[in-house]
């Protein structure tokens, strides 16, 4: 019986990329529907009525929302090339660090990204502390789970791309090779990995998009 797999995404969403990579790693064929979030399709609103966000995976008509939930769904449905460790304790650690990436790390990177120049040093403190914790997790490993790409690499994938975009826009070095040798090395290995590298959104488009976003935030924050 032929399966029908659809992925609702945007051209730039790092969270949607997690699913693109996961499906590629598993060799699953699927149809892509690109959404414009300023003009959401009726299908997206039907499949994700509560949040109206991407990514949404629709498998034989059944929608799955929230990228980390989708990753686990993909892993449990297509069991070959597992993304998550089998051992419950290691699995828990993977989930813990994925949550850390999406909550604490994302918050601190966002705060740094919209900080005015005079506030950047302070904003960077928390980001750097969080990056140190991630650096620890990568000691002695090529990828988060060892030699091959897995769940946590996909979960942190957005960061591998975004860090260089942030650094270029803000003219600062966040992840320098001396302070973060393992994280730097992971970024290099990940962005160039065969399954990963062909999926990145166009860099020039990303730079423009985030530059515009940052300027809007800075303008809104400026006292009148």
């Amino acid at each position, binding site marked *: 019986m032929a399966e029908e797999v659809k992925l609702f995404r*945007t*051209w*730039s*969403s*790092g*969270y*949607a990329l997690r699913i693109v990579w996961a499906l590629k790693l598993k060799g699953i064929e699927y149809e892509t529907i690109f*959404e*414009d*979030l*300023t003009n959401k399709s009726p299908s997206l609103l039907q499949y994700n009525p*509560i949040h109206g*966000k*991407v990514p949404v995976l629709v*498998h034989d008509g*059944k929608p*799955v*929302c*929230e990228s980390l*939930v*989708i990753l*686990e*769904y993909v892993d*449990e*449905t297509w069991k070959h090339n597992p993304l998550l460790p089998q051992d*419950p*304790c290691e*699995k*828990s650690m993977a*989930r*813990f660090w994925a*949550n*850390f990436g999406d*909550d*604490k790390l*994302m*918050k601190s990177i*966002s*705060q740094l*990204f*919209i900080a005015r120049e005079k506030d950047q040093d302070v904003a960077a403190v928390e980001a750097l502390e969080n990056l140190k*914790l991630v650096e620890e997790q990568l000691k002695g490993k090529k990828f988060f789970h060892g030699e091959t790409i897995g769940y946590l690499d996909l979960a942190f994938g*957005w960061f591998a791309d*975004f860090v260089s975009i942030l650094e270029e826009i803000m003219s600062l070095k966040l992840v320098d090779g001396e302070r973060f040798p393992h994280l730097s090395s992971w970024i290099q290995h990940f962005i160039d990995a065969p399954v990963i590298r062909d999926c990145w959104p166009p860099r020039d488009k990303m730079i423009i*998009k*985030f530059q515009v*976003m940052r300027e809007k*935030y800075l303008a809104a924050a400026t006292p009148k």
Partner: protein
Amino acid sequence: MGEESKAVVHGTWASAFTKRVELALKIKGIPFEYVEENLRNKSPLLLKYNPVHKKVPVLVHNGKPICESVIILEYIDETWPSGTKLLPQEPYQRAKFRFWAAYIEQLLESVAKLFNAEKAAQGKALEEVHEKLRILEDGVKEFYFVEKSPDHVHAEKLGMLDIMMVGHLVAFKAQEEVLGVKIIDPEKNPFIASWIQALIQLPIVKETLPPHDNMVGLLQFVKQTGIKLMDKSRGHDRGLESKLQSST
């Protein structure tokens, strides 16, 4: 081996998140030791087991710490697979559970926001809670309860979503008393109200949750001193992060 294979829960008596873990272990029939932590004077053990967030609950099993209550619930279900299942086996059903688990956490953030709100902002905050409860009600009753009644609850076969809600029941009632508002309003959210009514009757719930008066006393103190509930990274600007990740 005996020393290592035991389960130890580090928690606090008022933490609903801790209650989730205690309930899950009791439902599974797993014996455990409980360590009451003092969050104003955190023990070296807690800081060792949860260096990143320094929070409760932490489940220590075989000497290894597991943090974050929902992660702990999944760990418990995977480690002790016999007996009551906290999550369904089928991947799509599991995905639904996880989606609604994440939604319940958002609902609880709204409840915390309501509690922390100044009097003037309370009305709007309460509306937000009721709206989220309505969404939860519509979403959950479709797939969670056979024949639209919480039968599995009577049998004490609680699942992850029951456990997540029930942990907060005493807090809800205490907050209603302290704030003078109705959080779980049977007229606005009849299904949720009857779900909670069924849960709160269970002996296993009554013995696990803290006494109502203790909770009221604590929340009155919190309100008076202006301490904010759930004041963690969750207070951040979701809009910004959402934009950073999903928008075109």
